[in-house]
């Protein structure tokens, strides 16, 4: 009965929460892993090659002059560089020679707030890391310890919402009791989502990403049917191709840069349940679910933040 399902779901969420409180961020780390760090004196365009070559979209920065961790390089930084370039087309030379330690100046030049990623000690409860990550609106959180001899920060690793939800999906059997339709849980972001169509200039879509503080913009056809999505990480391919200086480029043309191993945009409906959502996260590299109705019309989006918030704070 729906009542029984609701009770089961409530108990399962509370049990998963206890699991997150009982584990540490250190527990999520594989037994052996690599951490790619970039010296802040690298050129921004070199750092882009390194990210793409290693199939990653973010990396911690290290300032060798102060011997300290200097924050995270993320797709937001590349979006800032593109916006700076569009406001200052004569500054192509400067953009070309921009170093990673110049990214904070770019933020100030275009008037955006630095992305506060916060940080947490690897042996704090995983629950605390999730809360800190959600507070900072970043989708990732550096795990910082201190070198025992020099007292300097060590970047142990960087946890992402995706890795944490995958860890839950892999280790919490209680996810199988999350059977209430997501439409009933009030966790879908609905209403007038920021959106565009295939002919919208890609620079306008990039503005929407910044303006909305979101990491993806759905692309709909003239009837409102979902046809594709432009993601913040797509900006890396745009810059790599050097085609970002083409004002007339449409978002549909910019999406031609996507590599063939892109898995596609995941959709679901209001009737789907978290049990299958979490199962999909367990098996695939999915970062959000666009909610459509039976005919495929866009009605909302369910992000990993929405799912994490529900597990941490609801029920």
């Amino acid at each position, binding site marked *: 009965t729906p009542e029984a399902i609701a009770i089961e779901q409530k108990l399962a969420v509370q049990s998963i929460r206890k699991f997150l409180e009982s584990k540490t961020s250190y527990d999520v780390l594989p037994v052996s892993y690599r951490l790619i760090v970039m010296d802040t004196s690298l050129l921004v365009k070199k750092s882009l090659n390194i990210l793409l070559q290693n199939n990653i979209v973010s990396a911690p920065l290290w300032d060798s002059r102060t011997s300290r961790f200097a924050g995270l390089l993320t797709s937001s930084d590349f979006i800032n560089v593109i916006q700076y370039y569009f406001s200052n087309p004569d500054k192509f030379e400067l953009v070309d020679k921009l170093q990673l330690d110049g990214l904070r100046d770019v933020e100030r030049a275009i008037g955006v707030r630095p992305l506060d990623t916060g940080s947490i000690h690897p042996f704090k409860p995983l629950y605390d890391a999730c809360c800190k990550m959600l507070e900072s609106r970043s989708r990732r959180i550096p795990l910082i310890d201190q070198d025992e001899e020099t007292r300097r920060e060590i970047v142990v690793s960087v946890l992402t919402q995706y890795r944490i939800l995958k860890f839950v999906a892999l280790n919490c059997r209680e996810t199988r009791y999350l059977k209430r339709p997501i439409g009933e849980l009030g966790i879908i972001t609905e209403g007038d989502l920021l959106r565009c169509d295939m002919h919208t200039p890609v620079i306008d879509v990039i503005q929407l990403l910044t303006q909305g503080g979101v990491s993806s913009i759905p692309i709909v056809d003239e009837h409102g049917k979902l046809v594709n999505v432009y993601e913040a990480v797509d900006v890396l391919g745009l810059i790599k191709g050097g085609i970002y200086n083409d004002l007339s480029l449409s978002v549909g043309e*910019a999406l031609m840069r996507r590599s063939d191993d892109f898995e596609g945009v995941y959709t679901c409906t209001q009737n789907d349940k978290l049990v299958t959502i979490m199962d999909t996260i367990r098996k695939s590299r999915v970062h959000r679910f666009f909610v459509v109705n039976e005919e495929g019309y866009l009605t909302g989006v369910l992000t990993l933040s929405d799912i994490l918030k529900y597990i941490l704070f609801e029920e």
Partner: protein
Amino acid sequence: QKDEDSTIAILPSSLPQIHRANMLAEGSSAATKISPLSTKKSKTRWHFGIRSRSYPLDVMGEIYLALKNLGAEWARPSEEDLWIIRVRWKYDCKQPSTDNIPDLMKMVIQLFQIEANNYLVDFKFDGWETSQGGSATPSSNEDEMSTFSAYPFLHLTTKLIMELAVNS
């Protein structure tokens, strides 16, 4: 437990191949010029230390010269270990160096012969010392030493490798 009535799906028109076909069918001009990011990632080839085919004494000379240019110091080698350099290197970073934070990094550089005229220079971190002399607080036991940041060591080795690359 497969939930039969799951409606989770991948949007077909978002798959790169289908999107590209749609764009070309639409006759978009730029579409013919824009190629997808290549998926093949050129594998980084890793080496232990750095390789050299030069004459061993020349290699050692190059290293001493590079260390000197970089302001590092080293212990006078004894007869039996001509191929080991015990380096001490002041890590001058812009941090207000309070007395108890060690700022002298120790490193062991050793030349190994792989085979006839094929040598390998290995770099090994060897702890910290404070300028005021004396070793930093030696970790009470092996396990304690696990909160170690390799980044200062990695940074100094990049400087040394660059000096060697530039000189050679």
